């Protein structure tokens, strides 16, 4: 038996428009966010004179990077169909752990940092494991761990140090070398560039590559888009999702180290509320809230929009009482522009 089925006629393609390169570009998830970012950027350039300097730009980039690093992980997790509400406090858990462990036992900060990394990965694992094994939505499980961590951050800090902030660790061994990695800056002309910005770029690039060009990336899309189908064709759904939770807690740890080594001391109550900034960055960047669609560069742009808006309002010198209202309007506008651009570029209804 040989090849008996003739390939369908290729004249066929006359009916279907081959999308041009431009329109293919336009179908990417981040394109709307990019347009929104450019509009907001121009908006502040026009309205806020002090926004127009390289220094300001890099301050915005710094602010974006602190949000953006964790947001990349949160974005991946959301593409994978899950949420992590503990991602804001885990940043502080990581920092507090390192700081208090080394201070209490008087050991080198490297040891604390590594133990704290292990601890954070464990937390991510627990989040993922509970979500997968119980079938309870991640929103709830991580809300639980969010509360637990928030309470434990306070309770343990109080227990260990007697106060609700950690002691200054700048005199403990290892501070300088770790500080170089996590929280150093250098100057180009009058502009200060924080390494966190570079790390951010690195993480975004890594995540973008993983999503588009690796097997794991394929799995992430699949477990977010349709976990039942993914499981049915042999994707290790449980492992993929647990892995994503661990990525988020790894990045949380990373920013926690940055905070610790930049500020030397941490308040035990910090980080609360940031989980939403990460989610906002991801969604503004084109990540589908229900999973299965999105992209790392979009998330980075989302974080940048957030950084730009929150500082732009200050650069413009607007009444701070209205800060939140501005932020809300900007958020809605960014999302609307995002949507509009998507609609313009592709009328495909995807479902």
């Amino acid at each position, binding site marked *: *038996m*040989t*090849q*008996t*089925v*003739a*390939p*369908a006629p*290729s004249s*066929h*393609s006359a009916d*279907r428009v*081959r*999308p041009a390169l431009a329109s*293919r570009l336009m179908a990417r998830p981040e394109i709307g966010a990019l347009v929104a970012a450019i509009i907001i950027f121009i908006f502040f350039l026009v309205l806020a004179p002090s926004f127009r300097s390289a220094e300001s730009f890099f301050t915005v980039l710094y602010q974006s990077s602190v949000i953006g690093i964790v947001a990349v992980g949160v974005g991946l997790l959301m593409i994978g169909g899950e949420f992590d509400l503990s991602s804001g406090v885990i940043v502080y858990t990581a920092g507090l752990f390192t700081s208090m462990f080394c201070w209490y036992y008087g050991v080198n900060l490297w040891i604390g940092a590594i133990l704290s990394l292990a601890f954070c990965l464990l937390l991510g694992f627990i989040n993922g494991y509970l979500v997968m094994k119980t079938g309870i939505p991640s929103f709830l499980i991580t809300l639980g761990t969010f509360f637990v961590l928030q309470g434990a951050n306070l309770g343990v800090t109080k227990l260990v140090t007697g106060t609700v902030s950690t002691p200054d660790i700048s005199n403990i061994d290892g501070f300088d070398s770790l500080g170089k990695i996590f929280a150093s800056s250098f100057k180009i002309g009058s502009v200060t560039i924080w390494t966190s910005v570079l790390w951010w770029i690195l993480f975004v690039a890594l995540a973008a*590559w*993983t999503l588009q*060009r*690796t*097997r*794991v*990336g*394929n*799995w992430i*899309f*699949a477990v977010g*888009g*349709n976990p*039942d*189908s*993914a*499981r*049915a*064709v*042999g*994707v*290790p759904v449980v492992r993929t999702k647990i892995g994503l939770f661990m990525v988020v807690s790894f990045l949380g740890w990373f920013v926690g180290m940055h905070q610790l080594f930049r500020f030397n001391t941490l308040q035990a109550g910090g980080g609360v509320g940031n989980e939403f900034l990460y989610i906002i960055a991801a969604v503004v960047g084109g990540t*589908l809230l229900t999973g*299965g*669609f999105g992209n790392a560069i979009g998330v980075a742009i989302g974080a940048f929009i957030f950084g730009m808006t929150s500082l732009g309002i200050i650069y413009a010198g607007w009444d701070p009482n209205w800060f939140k209202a501005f932020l809300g309007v900007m958020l809605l506008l960014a999302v609307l522009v995002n949507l509009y651009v998507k609609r313009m570029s592709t009328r*495909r*209804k*995807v*479902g």
Partner: protein
Amino acid sequence: MTDTLADHADKGLHKGEPLVEMEGVGKSYGAIRALRGINLRVNAGEVTCVLGDNGAGKSTLIKIISGLHPHNEGSLRVDGKEVNFASPREALSHGIATVYQDLAVVGLMEVWRNFFLGSELTAGRYPLAGLKVKQMREIADTELRKMGIVVKDINQPIGTLSGGQRQCVAIARAVYFGARVLILDEPTAALGVKQSGVVLKYVAAARDAGLGVVFITHNPHHAYMVGDHFVILKLGATALDKTRKEVGLDELTQQMAGGDELAELSHELKR
């Protein structure tokens, strides 16, 4: 298409050798007992057809073989060894590929990504190894063309394809990755005559390449064209279990439909 099947088929298959054996298998969903006391053999180089009314338990049966749901009773042996698949991944690693009736594809993902999902081609074994994107696109396109399906753009989300087109992608995928056992749950239901013919040819080709095939259909004609072995389920139990030699098309049709009823129908609707 034989090239595809022959290329990927396990070379160590011997016609007639049992690949999957079920003994007294049963399955309950909570209070609902969907299957009980099922004995089934899938042999290499043979097509086992499973027929039955709606809700008879056909999909449940194949979900057990493909590792999607564990069975509650009886034993399942693959290559003579008793197994209890914890996931479809394990079944796949035994060379068992399945086309599911309801859960087939991830709507938002591109056609070619769906085609290779779970069995991606990578440049290496480590997790961050790059995907061979170009190659995967080409293969997916070629395999779909062989079924007479030309998608406008292999990069379009599979959710934008028509029902039958999606079904074809799922079939092409299973055929491509089914090395030992191919399971098809009503593959021709959404397909036109032409595409149905293509699928039947694939079934025959798979059989000829030495694979064991489980073919679920409502169409006794389709079943009889390719089947070696026929099982009819009724309310979760086996109602008929015969080889091609033991049963004719007419008996099969009659058993499936209550025979007379069909004739009556034709008569009734005659105009």
